């Protein structure tokens, strides 16, 4: 049985350091803590995206362990190849890990991820979800929620920003019958680290979908990044759940949601929303939670 992971028990050693991510970057925090849990014998595969753009600028390298930038669509495939290569060479006690963004996972990388899960390759795949293509300048992805203003889903008289809901990546992944999948948030870091540890211990493919605010893309103060990620869970627009042994579990089931409006109004990307848009967002949330509470609570 592993020790409970928290600020006190987690290693002081930094394995992801000196990167050029924006101040208050949620994704960078997720990668940093995941690396701490996974350890030095981790081989990280990162597709095009913020985390690769800020960490491999010759000659400044931010990963202290092995890491590789993959083609955008190929996080799952490269990580699978790394795992296969290590196995073939008999290099044991290592972890092949992918860190992709929301677009790199739910859009361009979905096929390669699906292939890896289908083969049950021994990899851990992280989707660092900041709800848009941030590295290229805040464009809409398949994980951009309804009503988000991005540079390709402008809000105006005719449109409220993005008009699609988030793709349901967690359940798409689970539908493969994956060994382990979880959702997490950088607002609940102990929960996140516990899930990383679980993924680390499980043989076969694991998927962790971590919600990670982006001050630059979301238009909020950098200091509230962690708190906002907690608020997202508390107001029901994100959720903490696991899929294991074929069963879903809702890890956090609040009696009452905190205010959706409070969550939305501190972010520039939602400033334009009108009451009717917020109603749509709440209705979508309620439908989702009704189903989760019915099926995922035991």
């Amino acid at each position, binding site marked *: 049985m592993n020790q409970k992971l928290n600020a006190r028990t987690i290693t002081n050693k930094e394995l992801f350091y000196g990167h050029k991510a924006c101040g208050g970057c949620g994704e960078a925090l997720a990668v940093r803590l995941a690396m701490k849990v996974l350890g030095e014998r981790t081989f990280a595969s990162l597709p095009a995206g913020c985390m690769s753009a800020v960490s491999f600028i010759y000659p400044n390298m931010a990963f202290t362990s092995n890491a590789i930038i993959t083609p955008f669509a190929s996080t799952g495939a*490269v990580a699978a190849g790394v795992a296969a290569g290590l196995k073939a060479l008999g290099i044991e006690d290592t972890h092949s890990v992918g860190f992709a963004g929301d677009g790199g996972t739910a859009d361009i990388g979905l096929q390669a991820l699906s292939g890896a899960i289908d083969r049950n390759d021994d990899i851990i795949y992280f989707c660092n979800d900041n709800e848009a293509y941030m590295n290229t300048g805040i464009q809409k992805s398949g994980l951009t929620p309804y009503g988000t203003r991005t540079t390709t889903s402008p809000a105006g008289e005719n449109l409220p920003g993005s008009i699609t809901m988030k793709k349901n990546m967690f359940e798409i992944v689970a539908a493969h019958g994956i060994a382990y999948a979880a959702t997490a948030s950088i607002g609940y870091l102990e929960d996140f680290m516990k899930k990383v540890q679980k993924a680390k211990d499980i043989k076969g493919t694991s998927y962790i979908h971590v919600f990670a605010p982006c001050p630059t893309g979301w238009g909020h103060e950098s200091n509230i990044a962690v708190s906002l990620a907690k608020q997202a869970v508390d107001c029901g627009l994100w959720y903490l759940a696991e899929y294991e042994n074929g069963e879903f579990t809702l890890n956090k089931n609040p009696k009452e949601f905190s205010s959706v409006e409070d969550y939305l109004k501190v972010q520039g990307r939602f400033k334009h929303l009108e009451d009717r848009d917020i109603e749509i967002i709440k209705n979508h949330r309620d439908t989702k939670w009704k189903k989760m509470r019915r099926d995922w609570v035991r």
Partner: protein
Amino acid sequence: MGKKLFISGNDAVAEGVRLAKPHVISAYPITPQTIAVERLSEMVEDGSLRAEYMHVESEHSALACAMGVSSVGARAFTATSSQGLLYMAECLPYASGARMPIVMMNANRALATPWNIYGDQMDSMFLINSGWIQVYVEDAQEALDMMIQAYKIAEHEEVMTPMMVNLDGFVLTHTYELVEIPEQNKVDEFLPPINMTKQKMDVDNPKSLCISAGNDFNMEFKIKQEMDMKNSVTVIEGVDKEFGDKFGRYYNGMLEEYRCEDAQVILITTGSVTGTSRIVVDALREEGKKVGLLKLRYLRPFPAEGISDTVKNAKVVGVIDKNISFGFEGTIFTNVNSALITLEKTPKTINFIGGLGGRDITKKNIDEMFESLLKEASGEKQERIQYMNVRCMG
């Protein structure tokens, strides 16, 4: 002497790969490559090849997966063709820039549209600038032998560059020939285990791979790649010689000339059309015509010096291209002309474009090519670009 088997080009590729013992094979099926990967999967199943066969969901992932394998210093193989090669295109310069010694078989096949599954060279020509070494084989034996040579060349410490072995779709992949299978112990002596040191991820010496280099450093990385690619010629020739010494089959390195010494006209070929052309050359020589043949084995690195040296005394040089760079001419023709421009006295050149979508290039067509070259040599002006065996023009 190894045993001899009557097998297809695809089978020969699989036999060659088995002897080269890759750690991982990642491939996606596409006609006419399929039989090669089917055989390999059978070899993995029956235990005669101790490798992992990864059922990837696309060609893009086939090469991405091979990159992952290579990134930790293991030996990777993949195979594709045509649309599949183009689908993995993004990954080709990725792998070559990272100096990953992956070996790939490509069954040369036409590109859509119009759809066509038969052989031409449009696919590999599309990727000629991808930073991969490109070799074109003439028959099944050469296909098998090149699978073994390819790993030795690609993994040479000064080369460390991925390599594409091209076989004409159907004409080579599906044609049966008597092929000698080298003995495993001799192959093991010839091909040492892969040993990457500088550009792999290693627990004891952590590396960051496929990094970015801005406008301040990017060019120097590319220049190094170019210098090493050019220098690989020496390694290619050395490996071919060593292979010949060991297995008794020499392929003459970058290119192979046939009856070129005193030739007035020389026809340049690649791949399977060379066999037919040799027969035509012999027949014309019988008639006293001074004709020769130059088979290009490698298109990257390009044997520019070897070509100009071979044809420098000829009056006219013909180039067969089973491809068109739309809006210009055949790609090999462009390359050959660029090589010849360095000569003080440049031979005249004629481009024969043919074989598109698997159209036959017959003995008669090759006869016609030599006839045209000889006419040009005797001062009778010929069309600079000629389309062979077409139903109609104009």
